[in-house]
């Protein structure tokens, strides 16, 4: 196996962590949205933290290995349009996901507080769980990551 094959294979494995971690966070969050009891919401949102760790490891790994690939190949450069656009979208995906993640953290803290104070459903918790701004930020983050993936496959000039 050549260095190129190792770098490319590991780059794709890291990309799997990045996007699959996002799938996991989405599945667990969607389940939490359908629950009313704060203790259940807090428990489920607590599990999303593991998904966030997987996403972070994948994002950083895919970036490092992607840059190593560009450095390894003489005919590729960070200035290539599709690579530059991919880097910008990768950063946008992380920034949007990070801002959207703050809302999820605030929701989890409220759910934990409510669980300690009687564990009764709260309109405020429901509002935070279904916050359209947080949804838009997380959806934007996912969309940016999907466009990066498409660019990696198409490699347009």
């Amino acid at each position, binding site marked *: 196996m050549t260095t190129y094959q190792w770098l490319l294979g590991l780059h*794709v494995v890291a990309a799997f962590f990045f996007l699959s971690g996002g*799938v*996991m966070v989405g599945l667990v969050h969607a389940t939490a949205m359908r629950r009313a009891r704060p203790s259940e919401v807090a428990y489920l949102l607590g599990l999303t933290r593991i998904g966030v760790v997987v996403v972070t490891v994948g994002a950083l790994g895919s970036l490092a290995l992607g840059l190593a690939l560009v450095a390894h190949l003489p005919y590729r450069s960070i200035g290539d349009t599709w690579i530059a656009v991919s880097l910008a979208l990768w950063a946008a995906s992380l920034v949007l996901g990070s801002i959207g993640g703050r809302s999820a953290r605030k929701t989890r803290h409220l759910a934990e507080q409510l669980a300690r104070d009687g564990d009764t459903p709260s309109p405020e918790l429901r509002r935070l769980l279904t916050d359209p701004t947080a949804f838009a930020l997380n959806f934007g983050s996912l969309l940016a990551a999907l466009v990066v993936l498409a660019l990696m496959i198409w490699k347009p000039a």
Partner: protein
Amino acid sequence: MRAEALVLLHVLLAMTLVGALLTAAVVSAACGRTATGPSRRLVWHSTLLAVAAAFATIVVGEATRAREHVDGSWLDVASGLAYIGLLFPGVALAVLGRLALDRQRLMPWITGLALAMVAVALATAFLMTAKPA
């Protein structure tokens, strides 16, 4: 459909598969002895999504292979891994996920099987990309 679109769909389905497996593994591990109803149902639904995604990934992969006339030992090994290490265990995982709705003691088996399948899926992705001789 263009070859690149088929490859993108194939990769997206595979990433959904790994995401569903990670969900099943993490939630079943977290369940322990005090699993709530929603988390048990989440494990069951994740295993169902995993088996559906495994089936769809293989179907789209075979369609791409037939269309592009791709061949090579790396592809044979990766296909074998996908069938033996993902599709058949995926069915077993879904059966376990359904049984675990009433039997808490099955959760560690789901965790172990789902993590093993994640390893197989990532190894398959590595082979499909690196294409070793």
